[in-house]
């Protein structure tokens, strides 16, 4: 990252501590939403499809099956609306972008867990 860009983000962006995760891991993202003027925390649990970008604009995509429909959400790593991230399972995958999950369903869309 450019030194100037780094300086700007040191000043303006709050530091965040998350567990390290990668594509294939199962995580729960607790994020803030404003509903009727009140703020509350909602959680989104699913598999990480990809992490993308560098520095301040990096994002990650989480996919889950909600009522039989695949739902993907993109979260910026540094968003102040992401309250916390919980790492549930470490997945055993062989690539960094799991786009193949989109065309699969049921047992073949499952990711094997890596036992450590």
């Amino acid at each position, binding site marked *: 990252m450019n030194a*100037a860009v780094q*300086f*700007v983000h040191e*000043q303006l*962006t709050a530091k965040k501590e998350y567990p390290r995760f990668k594509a294939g891991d199962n995580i729960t993202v607790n994020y803030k939403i404003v509903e009727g003027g009140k703020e509350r925390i909602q959680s989104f649990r699913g598999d990480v499809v990809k992490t993308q970008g560098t520095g*301040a604009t990096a994002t990650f995509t989480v996919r889950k099956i909600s009522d039989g429909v695949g739902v993907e959400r993109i979260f910026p790593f540094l*968003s102040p*609306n992401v309250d916390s991230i919980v790492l549930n399972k470490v997945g055993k995958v062989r690539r960094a972008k799991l786009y193949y999950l989109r065309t699969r369903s049921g047992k073949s869309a499952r990711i094997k867990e890596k036992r450590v």
Partner: protein
Amino acid sequence: MKGIIGKKIGMTSIFGADGKQTACTIIEAGPCVVTQVKTEDSDGYTALQLAFGDKKEKHSNKAETNHFAKANTPAKSFVKEFRDYSIDKNIGETVTVDIFAEGESVDVVGTTKGKGFQGVVKRHGFSGVGEQSHGQHDRQRAPGSIGGSSYPSRVFKGMRMAGRMGGDRVKVKGLKVIKIFADKNYILVSGSVPGHNGSIVLIQK
């Protein structure tokens, strides 16, 4: 009018208090030295000449060196005049990013990236001629007809055709000043700014 000369550093995005992401450009602006004050009496108009960026002494000729010596400053690489400057400054004084306030709306002038020789689809937004199938070929990005035949027997001036694109002076109006770091001379403006990273831009209001 007030203004300052700066260097485009690059783009990033900033999260607001509401959690919304705003794209913004970081510009290293100033400090600029006032190298000449033009007045109604001596020059027929009022203006302030600002100089920005360092360069080596050996790269300026005698005329330039003496001109900068009047303002008591070493040689500068970029000089620009601002007409009817609203802040009173004397020769030799500096202009810094402090002249702008956060939340203020500014215009940014820069030179766009050169794109080289480009066709009409990219250069003027034409949609091209013809379809992909039905026996047509080699016409997808063509300009089409450029005018009549025996009348007027010529092509009108200003007809939009392929050619050199980019490298133009462009002013982007109404960018918001998001943040100012006075000690680092950084100014963050919303949105994008013409030119590549490291190019000279003018911030004015």
